[in-house]
């Protein structure tokens, strides 16, 4: 019986780096100035919005009541639910299309990578207004078919007010560049070929390989792409407004304006902004932890 008795020293995990002492004299003041200007640029509008939501200029009193009214505001729950559902379906369709295509291009057709990248970037230069006008025309053409025909029914289903399927289809296009970049960064950070071959060699089918070996290692890219898509869907106004649906962004403008002297809409906006930041911070934090893990490995 043989065992390996001598083992080389394990990698120094989390080896402590020498601590830097904070020295005020070494602070570069121009950096502080730039950061200060940027801070003012971002903070002033938000602070003004917050001030608007909590200060009643007529009674000259402060109140957080607009924030309390958010969840009971008519239409809030419906619009948020619809937006979340649309966003989730958008993410599912997006990844169902992108993940296999990008894995195939990375493994089998690397020469096609620039082509795929160019295609994925096209929506960046696509005007939402032009896009929605085209979609309206197509949907209108569908509705002009004889009732009962598949095309007519399809046009009706796509514009279902409770769950407008047309929105995730359009949002997939708009979110494509962001999801592509996030996934591409994730794919470049792993040795995809070796992961796939190791898994296949151990007996895993292609679906199992993607599910158990590839996707877990792309989780940061997948998560950041999903968060960007979610934020995009929550903030998109033009398309859903022109198509006359009432997701969250349209609700804020149309219905949210009515309550409490218009203080509800900015209160909702601020709250959603803070939530988005919290999620983005979480993604960055997870990405940072992964990066530290990789650094440890490479150092060994």
């Amino acid at each position, binding site marked *: 019986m043989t*065992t390996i008795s001598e083992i080389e020293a394990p990698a120094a995990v989390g080896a402590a780096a020498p601590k830097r002492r904070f020295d005020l004299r070494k602070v570069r003041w121009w950096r502080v100035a730039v950061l200060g200007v940027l801070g003012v640029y971002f903070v002033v509008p938000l602070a003004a919005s917050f001030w608007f939501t909590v200060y009643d200029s007529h009674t000259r009193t402060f109140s957080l009541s607009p924030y309390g009214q958010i969840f009971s505001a008519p239409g809030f729950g419906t619009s948020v639910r619809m937006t979340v559902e649309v966003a989730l379906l958008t993410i599912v369709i997006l990844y169902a299309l992108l993940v296999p295509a990008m894995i195939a291009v990375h493994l089998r057709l690397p020469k096609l990578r620039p082509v795929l990248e160019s295609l994925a970037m096209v929506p960046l230069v696509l005007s939402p207004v032009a896009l929605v006008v085209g979609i309206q025309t197509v949907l209108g053409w569908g509705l002009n078919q004889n009732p009962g025909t598949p095309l007519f029914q399809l046009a009706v289903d796509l514009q279902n007010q409770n769950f407008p399927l047309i929105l995730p289809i359009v949002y997939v296009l708009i979110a494509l560049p962001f999801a592509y970049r996030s996934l591409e960064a994730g794919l470049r950070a792993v040795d995809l070929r070796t992961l796939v071959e190791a898994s296949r060699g151990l007996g895993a089918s292609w679906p199992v390989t993607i599910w158990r070996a590839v996707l877990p290692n792309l989780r940061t890219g997948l998560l950041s792409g999903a968060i960007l898509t979610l934020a995009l869907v929550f903030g998109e106004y033009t398309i859903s407004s022109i198509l006359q649906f009432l997701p969250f962004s349209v609700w804020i403008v149309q219905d949210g304006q009515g309550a409490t002297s218009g203080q509800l809409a900015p209160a909702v906006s601020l709250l959603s902004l803070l939530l988005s930041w919290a999620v983005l911070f979480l993604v960055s934090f997870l990405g940072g932890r992964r990066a530290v893990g990789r650094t440890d490995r490479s150092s060994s």
Partner: protein
Amino acid sequence: MNATASAAPAKDAALARGVGLELSGLHRSFGAARALDGFDLALAPGELVALLGPSGCGKTTALRIVAGFDQPDRGAVFVDGADLTRLSAAKRDMGMVFQSYSLFPHLTAGQNVSYGPRLRKVPSGERDKQAAELLELVGMAGMQGRYPHQLSGGQQQRVALARALAVRPKVLLLDEPLSALDAKVRLQLRDEIRRIQQEFGITTLFVTHDQEEALSMADRVAVMKDGKLEQCAAPAELYDRPATAFVAEFVGTMNHLVGQIAADRLVRVAGRELAVDGECPAEGTKVKVLIRPEGLDLEPIGDAAATAGLPGEGQILLATFLGATTRLTVRLGDGSEAKADLPSHRAAEFPVGSSVRLLPAPRPVLVVAEG
């Protein structure tokens, strides 16, 4: 550590012992580049064969075809007599250790080892037990919970070996698994891989560009050139009786001394006549005579004789101490250099700058016509 008792069940359960592997007439091209050009190789059950050759000779392509990661344009792969050429990699029951660290980064060492058994629906308890035993076998006992980024390169390759063994592979494929490791770990791990391979009696194909690694680990070494097999032989035979000039030059250090064919299968070199092994050009042809450093002896001569520049005479240029032997580099009269390995106690007789005469050992030599 009493590893014998605990690892024995893993050994019994883990592997299907000794199957034959045959690569028959493999052809593979990538565009205009021909990676394999009628490559044939047969491995006996339980044998470790190293594929050795220069970069681009097709050794990794051959291994990938055996693993099922690539398909040959022509030819076939047989395992235990069954044709696996078109079988998916997932169904071949082979274990592979890659050059790059291939552990799944999101899984612990134990989960990596259990990956294959889990796919084969081995119950959880049995999987964990087997993983622990295999990790112990490769010297990683108690490290089931470590993630790959918490392991050194050598440790990762040990886990990769355990993971490959866990699927009871019919054939073990090693794709330069030691090349990314530092010298000390490489030496340590190669001995261990060899010992484990012999214990399990698992048929193993091992790709390497490191001659020393190939010669020290393998039962036989298959030297490849331009997608073809040049020679497949036991290390000693490959070194002492290379079948072709390429093998002779590629494996080990080789001197190229100027000589001339004196008669049928007889070459005159450094004032001696030696038998020619292998192909022999016509009488009178000027040739390069291939002689290993250990096949050359030296004798001291007077300075006057050296300046005459007789064949096989020159001056000591450099002495490199190698331990038991010292390699003496001699600059010959024609400007070329020859290397002779002498026992270190004798090398002192030949200080740098002294004049010497080469004395080739009276053994058959390979010759190459000067072109």
